[in-house]
């Protein structure tokens, strides 16, 4: 299988790659060879099974070391002082006194950090903005000094806007130079005016979604240590190479002088995609003081200034013929990003979910005086699907058509947004399997009685999410002289299980025992490049690179074995860390490698270009709720989820991903909302007591499953991503169930008791 590149074929080509569900065209390298795809019926014995996580032992014994646990000799502790106001100018602060306090080794304020770090500016544009930092011998000393410094801050305050309505008001204070609202992004296909004219029924709703906080249990943090002019960073991150390039750029260092390490991390969910204020603060103090420095967010900082899912206001109109055929979908959306952010808006899913000829989406991003957004599990699609699926459910009710039947009538058969066929799309099967598991009856139920106190209802919603991944991603597979195997790739494991599934893929392709294979990840200096673990793309991006590297190593091993065994290579195979001759074990990998002496077998792999196809993970979720009409409390009773992600590498770990997405979706539906005081501009619930994430007592019975199969057209492993899809349909399915229970639609999240009671009161 290994071989030289065909001299006539191009080494570099253009392909479409994905970043957080968005696609970009890039130049990529064509690998010298690509393994033949593992088809759905490929006889795999390790991929598709559920061995325990390779790092489970470390996690249950407390031996797993997270960034927050990292200790270096002589390490100092830094604490960032943050703005208590939303807008104004810092007029004074007392760094001099702070530098004399017990244990304090240094303090940084305005003008003390390179401008590229954007740290410690006097102009304040949101509460929580870093203004200064202190560094001390103990965290206690640093926190005490930070409190003294905080008390010395004085400001000239000016009016702020922390809500979308305040930011777009005629007399709104200017949040950003250039205006508070961006030019609208309009994406249109067909003719919505005609589509609406052709409709027998139109539905118009305005949906509002809240700001949601990632709330990873391990806060953002970094430990920085300089050795000469080389900087080593231990960082809790989803992207070691991105932290490296961020820091190199901000501190004007060659990338080769920055090494980023990440072993274990306590959750990310999209908020840990690059370097942050904590990273730069630790690096600057460490350089100035000649000692390692740790800087961790405390919980308040984590819930204030470490990213969020932005709120949305979505005005949706859908039109359909009497038989349910969609004729038009129109979205007008406002997305208050905070003071910064990218257009992770809700529109894209509107163009992908249904086969509708006439669609127009208009998105306007709005800047407000609040910390900027970051990607959060299924960014844009979670917000968009809540409104789109809500409108589809409302349409089903208006047409008296079963909501699943309505969706099947309008099933997307190709991806019209990118004008491509699907590699595979089995959403119809997901609906069928979900209906069977849930016991969904297709008859349209009457809206319920409004007299009982406890009212039950059922709802459905679906999702799509681009999960093809793509290049670049590289891996090496090294067979050691005792026959053990190292998989070397610069990716990271957020808790998803990538360390485990990459070892499974390598063991399968190499014919090694899984317990002889170790995945080495999380080091920019010693491992080949892999991208951020975001966009559900680690498995479909890094998986094929690992498989190719293992295939390459296997080919080399067999060529060497052929010499040693004086047997033609086509009579040799591998299985269970043995080389088999005519199907009979001839030599173990260990015996072969001993015989090879110091010769080392290293296989190389890279992720090839994507096919000219749309690669998506799809799924449907069904919810049953009970609503207490007197207290307004929504209880989710059960949830059935069926998704199709192509080949599942490890079903137990994949199921855990579904649970995680669904449970975060329940939080988004029922509990979670960041509150900022409109008058004072400061956060009101920046902790884990008042910002309510689901607890174990809130979780219903969850039945989460995948369709069997593989998607060999997507990549040669046949796997797509799964991390983000399950959070997308949960909230709209729950909202539909609440509407079914009450006979009233609630168009704003979360479905808190006061919203429910307000809706019941009309």
């Amino acid at each position: 299988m290994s071989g030289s590149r065909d001299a006539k074929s191009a080494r570099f080509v253009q392909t479409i790659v994905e970043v957080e569900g968005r696609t970009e065209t890039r130049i990529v390298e064509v690998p010298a060879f690509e393994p033949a795809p593992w088809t759905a019926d490929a006889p795999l014995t390790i991929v598709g099974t559920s061995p325990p996580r390779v790092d489970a032992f470390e996690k249950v014994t407390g031996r797993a070391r997270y960034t927050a646990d990292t200790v270096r000799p002589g390490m100092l502790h830094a604490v960032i002082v943050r703005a208590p106001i939303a807008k104004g100018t810092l007029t004074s602060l007392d760094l001099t006194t702070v530098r004399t306090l017990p244990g304090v080794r240094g303090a940084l304020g305005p003008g003390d950090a390179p401008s590229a770090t954007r740290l410690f500016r006097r102009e304040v544009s949101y509460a929580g903005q870093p203004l200064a930092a202190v560094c001390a011998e103990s965290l206690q000393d640093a926190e005490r000094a930070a409190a003294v410094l905080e008390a010395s801050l004085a400001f000239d305050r000016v009016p702020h806007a922390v809500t979308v309505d305040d930011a777009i008001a005629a007399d709104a204070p200017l949040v950003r130079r250039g205006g508070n609202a961006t030019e609208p992004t309009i994406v249109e296909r067909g003719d919505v005016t005609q589509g609406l004219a052709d409709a027998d029924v139109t539905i118009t709703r305005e949906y509002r979604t809240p700001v949601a906080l990632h709330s990873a249990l391990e806060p953002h943090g970094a430990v920085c240590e300089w050795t000469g002019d080389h900087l080593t960073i231990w960082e809790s991150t989803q992207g070691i190479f991105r932290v490296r390039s961020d820091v190199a750029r901000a501190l004007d260092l060659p990338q080769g002088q920055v090494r980023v390490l990440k072993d274990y991390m306590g959750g990310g969910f999209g908020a840990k995609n690059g370097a942050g204020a904590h990273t730069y603060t630790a690096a600057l103090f460490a350089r100035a003081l000649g000692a390692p420095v740790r800087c961790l967010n405390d919980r308040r900082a984590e819930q204030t200034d470490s990213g969020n899912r932005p709120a949305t206001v979505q005005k949706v109109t859908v039109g359909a013929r009497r038989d349910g055929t969609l004729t038009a979908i129109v979205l007008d959306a406002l997305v208050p990003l905070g003071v910064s952010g990218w257009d992770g808006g809700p529109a894209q899913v509107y163009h992908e979910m249904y086969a509708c000829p006439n669609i127009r989406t208009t998105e306007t991003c709005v800047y407000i005086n609040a910390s900027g957004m970051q990607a959060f599990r299924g960014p844009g699609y979670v917000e968009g699907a809540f409104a789109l699926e809500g409108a589809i459910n409302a349409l089903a009710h208006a047409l008296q058509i079963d909501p699943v039947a309505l969706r099947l009538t309008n099933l997307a058969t190709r991806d019209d947004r990118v004008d491509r066929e699907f590699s595979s799309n089995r959403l119809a099967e997901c609906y069928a399997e979900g209906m069977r598991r849930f016991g969904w009856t297709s008859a349209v139920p009457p809206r319920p009685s409004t007299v009982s106190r406890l009212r039950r209802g059922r709802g459905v919603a679906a999702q799509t999410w681009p999960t093809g991944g793509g290049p670049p991603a590289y891996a090496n597979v090294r067979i050691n002289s005792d026959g053990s195997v190292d998989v070397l790739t610069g990716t990271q494991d957020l808790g998803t299980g990538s360390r485990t599934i990459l070892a499974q893929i390598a063991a399968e392709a190499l014919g090694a025992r899984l317990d002889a294979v170790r995945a080495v990840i999380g080091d920019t200096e010693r491992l080949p490049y892999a991208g951020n673990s975001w966009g559900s793309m680690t498995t479909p991006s890094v998986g094929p690179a690992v498989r190719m590297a293992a295939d390459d190593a296997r080919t080399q091993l067999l060529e060497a074995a052929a010499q040693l065994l004086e047997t033609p290579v086509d009579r040799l195979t591998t299985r269970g860390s043995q080389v088999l001759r005519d199907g009979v074990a001839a030599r173990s990998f260990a015996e072969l490698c001993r015989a090879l002496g110091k010769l080392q077998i290293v296989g190389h792999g890279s992720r090839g270009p994507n096919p000219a196809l749309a690669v998506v993970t799809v799924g449907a979720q069904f919810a049953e709720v009970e609503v207490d009409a007197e207290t307004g409390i929504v209880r989710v009773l059960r949830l059935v989820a069926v998704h199709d992600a192509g080949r599942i590498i490890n079903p137990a770990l994949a199921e855990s991903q579904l649970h995680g997405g669904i449970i975060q979706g329940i939080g988004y539906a029922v509990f979670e909302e960041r509150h900022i005081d409109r008058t004072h501009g400061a956060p009101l619930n920046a902790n884990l007591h008042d910002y309510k994430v689901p607890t174990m007592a809130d979780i219903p019975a969850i039945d989460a499953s995948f369709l069997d199969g593989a998607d060999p057209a997507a990549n040669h492993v046949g796997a797509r991503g799964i991390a983000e899809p399950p959070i997308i349909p949960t909230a709209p399915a729950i909202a539909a169930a609440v509407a079914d229970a009450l006979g009233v639609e609630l168009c704003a999240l979360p479905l808190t008791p006061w919203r429910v009671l307000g809706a019941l009161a009309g």
Partner: protein
Amino acid sequence: MKLSVNGTPRDVDPSRSPTLLAALRDQLELTGAKLGCDHGECGACTVRLNGDLVYACLTLTAACDGAAVQTVEGLADGGTLHPLQQAFITHDAAQCGYCTPGQLLAAAALLDQRPHPTDDEIRTAMSGNLCRCGTYPKIVTAIRSVADASGASATRADAPPSATGDAP
């Protein structure tokens, strides 16, 4: 000041570490108990103090003189994992693993008090330990498996509804 930590006498200086969590992590280098919120909101720092469950971040070191503390590092019996640790591995009850030490100690305390809890009792007893990865269903399964394996079967009159088929 002396503590017994995982059965071993240890000296700590309460003036350097006001909270038990800081004493364990910074002075004794036992980093199994995690810092998640430092305000008794998340449960990542859960340890056992004289057998009782406490949030170590809210427990004053000075109040622990002579106390017996158990952390996740002391859960295994020598080289043999505690049945809950093994069950957490078997049932994939740890995703990122950051909350896992606290979850394990909370589960151990529950089973010491009620060897055969119902699923509702498990959910209530464990609701002081947040898991943002959403590992809850598998944590319940893991605890259930240990309870079921330890002899007499529990009455499960209040077993939760199945997710499939008709709701009760």
